[in-house]
């Protein structure tokens, strides 16, 4: 295993920047998820690491080698594709043996390694089958087997679970995580599903529009999103973002809405709000950090219930607050109904404030 370093990596198609100056370091044995919406450049970034497409700028290092100009075959990597990309005319055995044959290993060693990989993934009974005779989950295992049979420096995975049904996906998710723990493998894992990234990865790299937005542990990304995009992308339901205006009232700072209500800020939050480029400030709140009241309490703001979604142990509700929709979660015993007027209390310790112009998280200065 080895560390992977991306340095100022750029990929352009004509005048379009698919990947724009991405730099990040994946430590030896680390599981990093590249996460972002469709078209954010995450798969392109992975293909650049693999060497499947030529780079427009920057460098990629695997271990202590610069691999920027090397063919994929010389990079000592393995890749699992979203559609598995099993060789359809070869049996499972030959699929697993192919990477070893290409490296001209002796026959008995190939057999030993294929059998070992098949045993790990519990596909020994499938070795003589063709890929089309396998179920989706089995194909997924074979694809994984073909990657691990060779003991590469890095595993690259391109949305390997997105073609599986929901139940199998959860199962394979824990298997891949286990696989990472057992092998201490360096893994770069592309997904559009932030839940996969949060649950599996040591670190996540959130991408949008070709730019790397934030690269940190899932807990830190969740707790301290650097901008409104990351805030809205990570977490389920997403963080709610309410555009407001910051106004100074004597010694204290309040956020005011177009409707006229005011939300006084704690001194720490007041400092943050004043550091904004203008008076436009966006309030961010995760569903679990707000409290719902039926009557007005000090520091609460008015809202109107939009929808109520009971899931059994938690009830999710969407509340109109000013011009935005606020996601909240409630205990199963709370009774509210659509169009009911309610009051929302924010947790000053755990609320997020963003600059309404730059969309960056505000910090106390």
């Amino acid at each position, binding site marked *: 295993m080895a560390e992977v370093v991306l340095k100022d990596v750029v990929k352009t198609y004509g005048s379009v920047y698919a990947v724009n100056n991405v730099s990040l370091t994946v430590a030896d044995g680390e599981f990093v998820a590249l996460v972002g919406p469709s078209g954010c450049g995450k798969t392109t970034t992975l293909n650049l690491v693999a060497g499947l497409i030529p780079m427009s700028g920057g460098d990629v290092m695997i271990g202590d080698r610069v691999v920027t100009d090397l063919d*994929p075959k010389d990079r000592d990597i393995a890749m699992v594709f979203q559609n598995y990309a*099993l060789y359809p005319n070869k049996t499972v055995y030959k699929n697993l043996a192919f990477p070893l044959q290409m490296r001209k290993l002796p026959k008995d060693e190939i057999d030993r390694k294929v059998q070992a990989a098949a045993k790990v993934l519990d596909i020994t009974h499938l070795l003589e089958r063709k890929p089309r005779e396998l179920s989706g989950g089995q194909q997924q295992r074979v694809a994984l087997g073909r990657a691990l049979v060779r003991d590469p420096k890095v595993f690259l995975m391109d949305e390997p679970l997105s073609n599986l049904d929901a139940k199998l996906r959860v199962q394979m998710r824990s298997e891949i995580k286990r696989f990472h723990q057992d092998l201490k493998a360096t893994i770069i894992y592309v997904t559009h599903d932030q839940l996969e990234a949060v649950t599996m990865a040591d670190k996540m790299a959130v991408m949008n529009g070709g730019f790397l937005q934030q690269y940190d542990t899932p807990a830190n990304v969740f707790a301290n999103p650097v901008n409104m995009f990351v805030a809205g992308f990570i977490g389920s339901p997403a963080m709610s973002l309410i555009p407001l205006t910051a106004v100074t009232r004597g010694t204290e700072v309040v956020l005011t809405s177009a409707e006229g209500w005011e939300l006084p800020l704690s001194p720490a939050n007041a400092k943050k709000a004043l550091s904004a480029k203008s008076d436009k400030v966006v309030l961010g709140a995760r569903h679990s950090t707000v409290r719902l009241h039926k009557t007005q309490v000090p520091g609460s703001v008015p809202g109107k219930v939009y929808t109520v979604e009971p899931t059994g142990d938690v009830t999710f509700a969407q509340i109109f607050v000013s011009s935005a929709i606020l996601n909240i979660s409630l205990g199963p015993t709370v009774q509210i109904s659509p169009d009911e007027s309610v009051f929302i209390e924010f947790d000053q310790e755990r609320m997020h404030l963003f600059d309404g112009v730059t969309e960056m998280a505000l910090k106390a200065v």
Partner: protein
Amino acid sequence: MTTLTHSARPSRPRRKPVDGWRWAGRIFLVLMLIYTVVPMAWMLITSLKGGFAAMMYPPQWIPAEPTLENYIRLLDPKDTIGQDFLRYFWNSLWVSTTTTILAVIVAVPAAYAFSRFRFPGRNFLFFAVLLRNMFPAVIFLVPLFILMRWLGLVNTHGSLILTYLTFGLPLAIWLLKGFYDNIPIQLEQAARIDGATRFQAFLLIVMPLSTPGIIATAIYSFIGAWNEFIYAATFLNKNEQMTLPVGIQRFFSENTTDWPGLMAASFMMSVPVVVLFLILQKYFVRALTEGAVKH
């Protein structure tokens, strides 16, 4: 009534109402079948008759005295007609096979490049390739003849092979590109990551998967060259070089036509094509990439 039967299930599927369109379709297909089979059958029947029986009116639908004499004559290297026929047959086989092999050798890399690589002028080139097939063949007859004369290829099989390639290649490239487009690029990427060079990935992974396409393309090229008449009639005027479609004309003479001989020759001309189809048809229907990727 036993408790084992599922009473909720209807005992018998309900009869579908008669579908007029379905019946119209069936009648149409039967008519089409008659339209295509009857001439072939008539060809075969006539080829089994003697010269006199072939001219009888009303015609004999089933030959009273079927004979293989026409076939024996055509295949007899000592007979003058047999000599001619066998030479034409050999000429056709040579021209068509060479055309086919060359077409496949050129079309495979060309189609792959059109399918996989983005290069400047790609769309224009691909359109230009197809443009050739949008004009009737006759338009190119005179220009190509002049070109062949300039190249000194008139009265050689080379002139036909070159000409047939100008027809066959665009079609072959176009057909094969469709096949390559349907082979997921991830298969090659996987192979390249697994240690193959770009060429090895093509040779070891893509080529086997495109075998049905290559065979289909080869058959199209072969049939096109095998049946072609007008260029063969124009470029060649020596008897020993003629191909079958032209040579068969020689059964018509000024005063009489040897109908049974002509029909026997025609039948044997269609045999290679039919045999080719029967042997290779499984490649047309085999969905080889099934199970390669999840759609």
